[in-house]
């Protein structure tokens, strides 16, 4: 299942901006959970329906870069197509490449509220690592 069942992520307290610590039972789930957590910061995801879908592919030199590029790609989709996304079906993934089918719907001011504008996912204190049996990511956003 693509949706994060709480509590798969926590807010990180940070003076200037907002950070997240996200968990996944495996590498693949970490990336879909991170994407969901980011959109959970942006809007009330329970009010978004998976009406539209698209396939996204991103690359990176390592899991860190892959994470930043993945989230940046989703922010770009959000802004250029006004698509609020809530489901992230990772079709293929390795350390350098990710292919996913993502689903959501167009922003409708009558039903959706924007909580936060995220300018970017940053490299600051970025961590993607395996801790015990779980995968963990720490991501800080510029807001």
């Amino acid at each position, binding site marked *: 299942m693509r949706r994060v069942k709480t509590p798969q992520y926590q807010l990180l307290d*940070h*003076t200037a901006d907002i950070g997240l610590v996200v968990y996944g039972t495996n590498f693949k789930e970490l990336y879909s959970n991170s994407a969901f957590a980011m959109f959970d910061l942006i809007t009330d995801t329970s009010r978004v329906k998976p009406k539209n879908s698209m396939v996204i592919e991103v690359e990176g030199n390592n899991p860190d870069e892959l994470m930043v590029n993945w989230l940046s790609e989703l922010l*770009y989709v959000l802004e*250029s197509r*006004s698509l609020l996304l809530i489901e992230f079906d990772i079709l293929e993934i390795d350390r350098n490449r990710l292919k996913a089918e993502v689903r959501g719907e167009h*922003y409708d001011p009558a039903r959706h509220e*924007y909580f*936060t504008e995220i*300018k970017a996912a940053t490299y*600051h204190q970025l961590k993607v690592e395996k801790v015990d049996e779980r995968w963990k990511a720490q991501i800080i956003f510029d807001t």
Partner: protein
Amino acid sequence: MGSQPHELKRISDYLWEIPQRGNMRVPGRIYASSALMPHIESDQSPLQVANVAHLPGIVKYSFAMPDIHWGYGFPIGGVAAFNMEEGIISPGGVGYDINCGCRLARTNLKSNEVKDKIKPLIQRLFSTVPCGVGSSGAISKLTPTELKDALVKGARWPVEKGFGERGDLEHIESYGAMKEADPDKVSRRAIERGLEQMGTLGSGNHFLEIDVIDEIYDEEVAEVFGLFKEQIVVLIHSGSRGLGYQICDDYLKVMLHAVNKYKLSLPDRQLACAPIGSAEGRNYFAAMACAANYAWANRQVIMALTKKCFEQQFRLSPRELGFQLIYDVCHNIAKMEEHTVDGKRLMVCVHRKGATRAFPPGHPDTPRVYSKVGQPVLIPGDMGDCSFVCVGSEGAMQKTFGSTCHGAGRVMSRAKAVKLSIGRPIQRELEAKGIYVLAKSKRTLAEEVPEAYKDVAEVVEVMHRAGVSPKVARLRPIGGIKG
């Protein structure tokens, strides 16, 4: 990144120094008062000041203004100049919101003429000026060709379309356009993000505010600026929107590779940069200039919309209303400027990230109308707090590469601010203080509660007393709109 805290040596009442150590090429210098110092020491921003001092070609000092707070790589409130030979240019030294800045417009109105009309005026502005995330432009979606034209022309672009007057251009930093802009260096994605957002305020700490001049500190300068006590003025704080974020993001990637290519050793990845003269460095600068120009065009459109709302609300002729741009400054920018270093004139690349240019009287880049007194410096306060008009000085040229502070600076995370505001009617609290605010998102209001910020008066006072940017006037908000 060094983990040992850096020593902070007090140089004077308003200046601290981080002595050079390890691979630092110059010392760090922080402008602050004893009252602000605990805030500064409580986050990692002094470490970031020291990190910037590691960068190749840095000249004199890695500076921080009193509103310094933690940023990505470079601290927010940081100023650093690099020589043209070994120096670097860094997207992290400018920030994601390229040319986030502030503009101030005057009117002939006095506070008693506006008091009863503030609510309808704010409601009119709220429905006219697009704000908030997901809002689209007041002008219909641009074609890529139109947008590229705007990226070159900056504020002149909307003026040619009837948003404002040609005379406005003289009242804008860099006259509203950096000539180094080259739209061919801007990605297709950045262009795409810019098409629909021209003339939009944005969200977060961006705002449009109606203020009353409630204190004049320097009558002579205030008169030259066209300011008087009890006058109604408008303060607009916005930037280059998604186009700027995308350009920063695009070039951070380019710079991560450049760091390896040019074998630069950096204490933090977010300091990624390239030599000023390298292809990567030149391309970033040309793209950054496009975003800067977009931001000036954006603020020009917003101001023209605001002027129209005033005309409709008060049913006054343009002459009676006297709505005029005083000045427009950038807070996030890199610029090639000539400065005196050790008695010699030197071309340097000055990065101002959360800092304002503060050029003195007689400087060739200080507009002619202000050449006797110096460039207006605009320092916005946080929501509900006062803002300040200051003036550039020779002291700024000698001490800080012609730079000063830019605002209040956060002291509290957004998450904490939201927690603190739970159950509080922020809008009514502000109204009780005589400030009528309309915001697209309740969350934005909660994140921007006054307690989340440093006291802007204290920040401005430090730069006043340090002889960098003397105070001219204080602005008290009576209404505003936010994203």
